[in-house]
């Protein structure tokens, strides 16, 4: 299997709090890796480092064998790393089209001005929403008037629309009902196959992780507590790794 992402001995501290301590792992092509851990295990910190929000204090990251050094989230996006943030990162004052296209608006140059191509963006938005099979009253509706599930859909829409190499999904089903959650999990599998993506999925819900992940990385207090193949582990073992009930070198 080809390695797409290699994380090598990454550490990150915030003041005296060590969020990540010498974390190393690899992500292979076209696989879904569940990233699990209790609150404060360092999952979100790891995701934010990988999506370019801030750099690690120590350690290296390689994408397709090349060492990468993100200066901003834009750099990560240019390399085809797309993130669905836990807080959804939506502008409730804007419509679904604008939200889908934040930072990647389709524009035409005219006398130094970057004119928005609204029609093109609308068509693409409708296409993405249709692919997700999620009903939104209108893509021109302000996001603040959408339901929780619909908002989450807009946020996931960025993953559906833009991810190329690697997608980082931070709690993508947190605001969804049971039926919608099932749909989103299926969607993740479908998009993964369609685009031959690698996906890191963060979830509190082990059931979801076991449903779609190929491997599971367990973080505990900033350290890797274990990396398991789904087929050779069970939820009980993962929970014990998360809580530290089983030693790492079992």
């Amino acid at each position: 299997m080809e390695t797409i992402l290699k994380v090598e001995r990454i550490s990150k501290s915030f003041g005296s709090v060590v969020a990540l301590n010498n974390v190393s792992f690899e992500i292979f092509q076209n696989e879904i890796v569940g990233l699990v851990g209790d609150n404060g295990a360092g999952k979100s910190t790891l995701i934010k480092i990988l999506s370019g929000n801030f750099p690690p204090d120590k350690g290296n990251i390689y994408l397709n064998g090349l060492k990468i050094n993100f200066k901003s989230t834009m750099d990560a996006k240019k390399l085809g790393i797309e993130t669905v943030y836990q807080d959804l990162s939506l502008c409730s004052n804007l419509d679904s089209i604008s939200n889908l296209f934040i930072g990647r608006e389709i524009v035409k140059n005219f006398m130094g001005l970057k004119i928005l191509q609204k029609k093109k963006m609308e068509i693409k938005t409708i296409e993405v929403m249709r692919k997700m099979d999620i009903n939104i009253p209108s893509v021109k509706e302000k996001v603040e008037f959408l339901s929780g599930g619909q908002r989450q859909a807009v946020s996931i829409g960025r993953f559906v629309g833009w991810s190329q190499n690697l997608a980082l999904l931070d709690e993508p089903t947190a605001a969804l009902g049971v039926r919608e959650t099932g749909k989103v999990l299926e969607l993740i599998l479908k998009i993964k196959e369609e685009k031959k993506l690698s996906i890191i999925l963060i979830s509190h819900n082990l059931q979801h992780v076991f449903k779609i992940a190929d491997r599971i990385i367990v973080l505990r207090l900033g350290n890797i507590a274990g990396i398991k193949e789904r087929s050779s582990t069970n939820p009980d073992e993962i929970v014990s790794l998360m809580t530290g009930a089983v030693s790492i070198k079992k």
Partner: protein
Amino acid sequence: MEITLNSQNTKKFARGILNNIVWIILIFCIVMFSSLIPGYFNIINYINIISNAAFIGILAIAEAICLISGNLDLSIESVAGFSAIFSAWLSGVTAYSSSGLNLNPYITLVLCLVMGITVGYINSFLILRFKINSFLVTLSTYIIIRGVSITLTKGAGISMLPDSFRLVQTIKILNISLIPIIMIVLYIIFYFILENTRLGAHIFIIGGNINAAYNFGINVKGIIYKVFMLSGALAALAGWLLTAKANGANPTMASGMLFEVLAAVILGGVSLQGGFGSLIGVFAGVLVLSSIRSALNIMSISPFITEVIRGSLVLVAILIDSIKKLFFK
């Protein structure tokens, strides 16, 4: 589910009315004043209302852009005031209290614009580099620049400027001077920028959710620099036009305009929380204030009462903004 949908729709409807309440107020004002005040219902008066709205109008564009980006620029009034006295000082014919440089008025315009852009740069530098609230930064520059204006001529006014300075006032199209036409052109340009360009879209995104802007790689700092530099340039232009219209300037020019500008902008539906507003509404807000000012003038109401009315209008505008926030979130 049905009920929540309905209440969502009611909410949206009520929100829509509150967002466009400025038009109701504008129509109410014009109709009421026109029918009650003798001499108000008159084309010349209407032209005056628009002409007199020009300065507040241009400053309101600047403030609206800042507020939409989630910032506040209090310094615009002082920048306009300094631009007014600075341009008169540079181009004044008499050596008394002016520089004696006798500069071409249009060179002074360029210098004023450079000054306004510089102030905008300094404002945004302080806000971004030291992470200070824009209110506090621009409050300081507001006071400092007013002080600089008074120091420049030691408090004296400057009059009798070259005739070429007054061209924007003396050239008339259909009996309307160029100044209000410049304002209207600026409204069209900036409306287009806000609604149809990437810069405009990014200003709304930053005002709506600055974290999302960072997460999706928008150059937040660059946009905020641009917003404040545009704001400074517009304020400087307004000040230069003030001098052109008055054929002279004094160091306290434009004082008091800030609150009228804020009233117009907030009344026009721009949210103090950022991310929300349209220049069409702002334009209506500016006309509301101008029509009230005109009514007070025609009725020759004491200027002291005018202050009370101005203040009350700011209060009403802020109340409307708060009601939106309280009941329709």
